[in-house]
């Protein structure tokens, strides 16, 4: 009896579960049909919309004046139109005639993160000063995409915000660096150079490397001065290494003494970066130093020292002779490695 009751109860539970799961599956199936249909309509509309608005913005961008009334934008199409608009440059008139600026402003106030990103891109492109305050506030938001886009927008509207942007870069190590590059490249290089110098002078030592990576977008003389300043004032190995790294592409003969000095630094990362500078201004009297550095315990230091050493010799044979004169097998390996790369590249040319 008990068995029968237990079985009946169990069967009832299973039946209820089947009913529930069936119901959920049917509901999900209905949702799928709904989403699928909506997507199909959306895709068709997207094709028409993209063709229409891209064509129109293309014409505007090519300088053609658009007479007559412009097509009206339906509520559900705004996001797409704004996203298309952000791919064009310098067509402010059309944007204002269409009311794109007003809609983007409203989206900035009430939309979600993605809406705000689109709005910020549009308002930054239009240089709409009404968005500046909101953009500056949004730069303090947690999300890396939104805060970075807000900074980009603020910078486009008011180039003096470069100082604020560089201050943000000191703390926002979550901003994707390729996007920061896009942002900084839009700023006048001289303005960036001056702002970078001030920002680096005021920055805490531990945050310096983050800014120094972007020094390459400043004019060469300004970048050189910034790196010099850091190298003469800082004692932080990370900052010194970053400054030397940024200096390497700009290195000249006058940097030789400094590069040699830093090759003796106790931190490998500093010695490594110093060798990158030295490679650009190596002299024949560095031979002994480089022979010593190719035996450094750190592989990368050995390799960079070998790269610098190979610059001293006009032919591969002379470099090989230098390698053979080295007692340390790791030093020989490093030279061999560099020569292998060099020969391969030369052969390809």
């Amino acid at each position, binding site marked *: 009896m008990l068995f029968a009751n237990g079985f009946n109860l169990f069967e009832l539970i*299973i039946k209820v579960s089947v009913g529930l799961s069936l119901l959920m599956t049917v509901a999900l199936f209905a949702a799928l049909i709904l989403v699928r249909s909506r997507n199909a309509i959306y895709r068709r509309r997207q094709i028409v919309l993209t063709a229409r608005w891209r064509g129109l913005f293309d014409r505007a961008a090519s300088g053609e004046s658009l007479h007559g009334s412009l097509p009206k934008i339906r509520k559900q199409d705004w996001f797409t139109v704004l996203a298309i608009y952000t791919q064009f440059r310098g067509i402010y008139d059309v944007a204002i005639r269409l009311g794109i600026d007003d809609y983007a402003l409203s989206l900035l106030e009430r939309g979600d993160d993605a809406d705000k990103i689109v709005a910020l891109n549009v308002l930054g492109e239009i240089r709409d000063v009404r968005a500046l305050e909101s953009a500056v506030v949004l730069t303090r938001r947690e999300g890396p995409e939104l805060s970075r886009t807000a900074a980009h927008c603020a910078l486009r509207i008011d180039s003096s915000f470069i100082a604020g942007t560089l201050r943000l870069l000191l703390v926002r190590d979550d901003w994707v660096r390729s996007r920061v590059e896009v942002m900084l490249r839009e700023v006048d290089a001289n303005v960036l150079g001056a702002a970078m110098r001030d920002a680096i002078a005021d920055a805490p030592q531990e945050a310096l490397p983050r800014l120094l990576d972007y020094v390459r977008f400043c004019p060469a003389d300004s970048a050189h001065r910034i790196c010099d300043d850091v190298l003469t004032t800082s004692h932080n190995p990370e900052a010194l290494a970053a400054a030397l790294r940024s200096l390497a592409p700009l290195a000249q003969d006058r940097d030789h003494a400094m590069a040699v000095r830093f090759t003796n630094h106790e931190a490998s990362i500093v010695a490594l970066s110093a060798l990158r500078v030295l490679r650009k201004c190596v002299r024949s009297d560095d031979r002994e130093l480089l022979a010593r550095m190719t035996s450094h315990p750190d592989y990368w230091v050995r390799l960079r020292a070998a790269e610098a050493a190979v610059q001293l010799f006009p032919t591969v044979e002379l470099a090989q002779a230098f390698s053979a004169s080295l007692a340390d097998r790791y030093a020989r390996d490093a030279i061999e490695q560099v020569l292998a790369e060099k020969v391969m590249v030369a052969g390809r040319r």
Partner: protein
Amino acid sequence: MIHGIRSDDIISVEFFLFIYFIAINAYYFFTGSIALMRLPWYVKLHLADPVRRSTSTLDQPVTFVVPAFNEEALIVQSLRSMLALEYVNFEIIVVNDGSTDGTLFALDSAFELEPYEGIYRPGLATQGVKEIYQSARYPQLRVIDKVNGGKGDALNAALNLARFPLIFSADADSHYHPATLQWMTEPFQQDPRTVAVGGTIAVASSEQHLPKSLIKRFQVLEYLRAFLATRMGFAPLNALGIVSGACGLWRKDILIECGGFRTDTIWEDMEMTMRVHNYCISTGRAYRVAFTPYPVCWTDVAPTLRALYNQRKGWHRHLCECVTIHRRMLFGRGGFFSWVTMPYFVFFEWLAPVVVTGGIIFSIAGAVLGFLDVRSQLWLLALVLTLAVFGSVVSILLDEISFAAYGLGEVSQLLIAALLENFGYRQFVMLANLAGFAAWLFRRPIHGSTKHPGPFVKAWRPDKPRLSD
């Protein structure tokens, strides 16, 4: 008493099976719900930001590592897709892991290999390296020709040669989206705690969007369930249990600190993911294992039942190896990983073939011997069926609200496949998993896998490392 079996025991077994199915599906419901909340946000964010495809010299350089064993047919085509990646600074290291076919010859013909005279630093012990080559056409492409040692061994050899701080583990028979590295390196920059990023793999098809073969379609459903419904659900909790070997980006330093890839397991991806979790948790390191749901990798799936059987047998064996190696993580102090992912792996993946097969045998025996009511068994079967279809419909819906990869006709075909897979296919896969479980239990070698054969091909003694003296 019925046929010598106590009736309350019968109810207990039935109730256990019922609870087990409900618990498995509750897990899917849980991860599916997280994915349903996260995916639309992710997709809209991608649409909103048109400059996100930019690439810069400031991006971290990446070493693309491609282990290859008898991949003559596909490797050249795959490497061409890798060489076309839109990224400023990356190198590709192919490891010919003792192939017995013409893999090396195919590479030489296509990429004009020349001996590479640089130094190979054997920091991680591997089977002997015979020769290292560099492409005359593509300076960023190098090939290590080594004695067979399994996929983990091949990856370790590549780690020894890799120059860059990020390591992308790739498969020689997969194809990659040109923006793969741009998308997958972003989490490393957005969160410095990131140690690994798993990418989404989709099923490649030469015929049309959805493969014509029913076996492949079933696998499409499995990939949708695995990546969109399960991994997308685990990732926000920092509980991703597997970074796929075909599409995973790792910090090189963490791989080295963990001692490189294991060579005594049949595969390496899940074990390395678990080891990284284990290592970071035990050393108190703040870390994140991220996931990118955008499909960036397309792979060929098993075309025949035999290949599928071998593949799943191998996968399950690897799972068995991983849960036993890292058993201390279960209900340990690893947060969501220990309390959500590990129980899922142990109870609903590792033990599933045993429980399900036991359940099927119990039901059949009960029906034949008459100690189970056939009607209640049919109801139970109906429950299993509806829940299975439910799980598949969730994953199709997830695809539809995110990337909408399939057309109307294809979605209909997938729905039909979602129903059909319950009649034979799932049982077949379960059987392969059971064979994998047995192979692990009795330590039997697995032969004839569609992918890498692991360390079971006869291993040679290591050659002398290629140092200059």
